[in-house]
């Protein structure tokens, strides 16, 4: 039997934390793109966009992320796509993230005063120009703080990918526990690493929010 020193445990967890970060970034960027697309569809009042996006948001916010991961894992396989835990986790987390971001951003767009749209219209800007040059710049300023805050939720969400066999921080913790029989120590380290990842982001989001209120 191999003996694990504390450094061995920490080192292996740190190596696995890379995948937590990678998956978080994929979900955040992918979710951001899908979310933006949904936001534009909704703001532009494409036919049926409003109820469809609302249903989409309700579906992803009203069901457990764990079930979404299972569905992606078994569902993609059903369509003949060779699913690795990577693909399933990336797909499920991207969709999950997009549903939350589109809802956050919708509020931010709605917070831009009506008069701004009307002023842009009266300057004969097309819809995409109104959005691009007048509304989105103002909405973005409001959106940054809650979006950064949501990043914390994405990082925590990636922990569930361990259940479908994706080896990130939590799964590595389970595997190391099985080898060392020191669950208290290992899960304690895992929790502290998540904390080290998330807490600075939380603090940064809070600072952004304060700054916005002062400037606002």
């Amino acid at each position, binding site marked *: 039997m191999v003996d694990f020193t504390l450094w061995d445990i920490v080192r292996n967890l740190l190596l696995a934390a890379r995948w937590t970060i990678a998956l978080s970034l994929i979900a955040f960027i992918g979710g951001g793109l899908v979310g933006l697309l949904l936001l534009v569809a909704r703001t532009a009042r494409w036919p049926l966009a409003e109820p469809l996006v609302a249903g989409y948001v*309700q*579906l992803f916010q*009203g*069901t*457990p*992320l*764990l*079930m*979404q991961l*299972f*569905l992606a894992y*078994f*569902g993609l396989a*059903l*369509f*003949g796509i060779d699913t690795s835990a990577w693909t399933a986790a990336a797909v499920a987390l991207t969709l999950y993230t997009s549903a939350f971001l589109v809802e956050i951003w919708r509020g931010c767009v709605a917070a831009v005063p009506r008069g701004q749209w009307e002023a842009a219209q009266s300057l004969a800007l097309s819809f995409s120009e109104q959005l691009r040059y007048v509304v989105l710049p103002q909405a973005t300023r409001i959106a940054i703080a809650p979006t950064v805050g949501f990043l*914390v939720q994405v990082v*925590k*969400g990636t*922990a*569930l990918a*361990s*259940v479908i066999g994706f080896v990130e921080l*939590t799964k590595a*913790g*389970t595997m190391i*526990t099985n080898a060392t*029989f*020191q*669950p*208290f120590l290992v*899960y*304690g380290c*895992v*929790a502290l690493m*998540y*904390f080290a990842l*998330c*807490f600075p982001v*939380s603090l940064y989001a809070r600072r952004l929010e304060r700054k916005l209120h002062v400037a606002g």
Partner: protein
Amino acid sequence: MRIELDFLAVLAQWPLLVTGVFWTLGLTAISAVIGLAIGTLCAWGRNSGPTWLRWVVGTYVELIRNTPFIVQLFFVFFGLPAAGVKLTPELASVIAMVVNLGAYSAEIVRAGIDATPKGQLEAAASLALSRTQTFLHVVLPPALKKVWPALTSQIIIVMLGSAVCGQISTEELSYAANLIQSRNFRAFEAFIIATAIYLLLSISVRALLNWLGPRYLFGGRR
């Protein structure tokens, strides 16, 4: 390529699903009640307690809010027994959910308390109410009323989070789905049905709490 879906094979195992729903709702109800109580105590402690208490509550809240629920659950279920505390899966689930909801609701309730107009406190003081009376009768009810929608959302998030408790073999809804799919290999169908039930549950729990809150928690009495 043809995809054959057999939902009936899953629905035939309905007693398992029903047990799962009861466990999910039961776990949620217990942790909502205890979690809100702890959250309110923490909110009070962080606002008007002594410095050391503020520090302790602050650490608790930040530690929980910045780590995933599944890690908290594993720490309670696998970690604590190593430190000498033996727990059943159900008890471990409740503890993890209570601790989790307590931290989140502390922040939410605190936001409500902070929004209390100063005149209310002065009015309470001029009526010679004690600090405890002021908190319980003047500050808390309107504060809860203000943040009730946020608390409702948080309780639902905790309910959806409880799907993870199946991983330590608490027999809630996701555990039932897993059990069914291991019996008849209808994984996709089992999870579709479980997901649909979760969606139904979150919609009805929200409706229930919206109805319950104003009636029994902060309305009517005064």
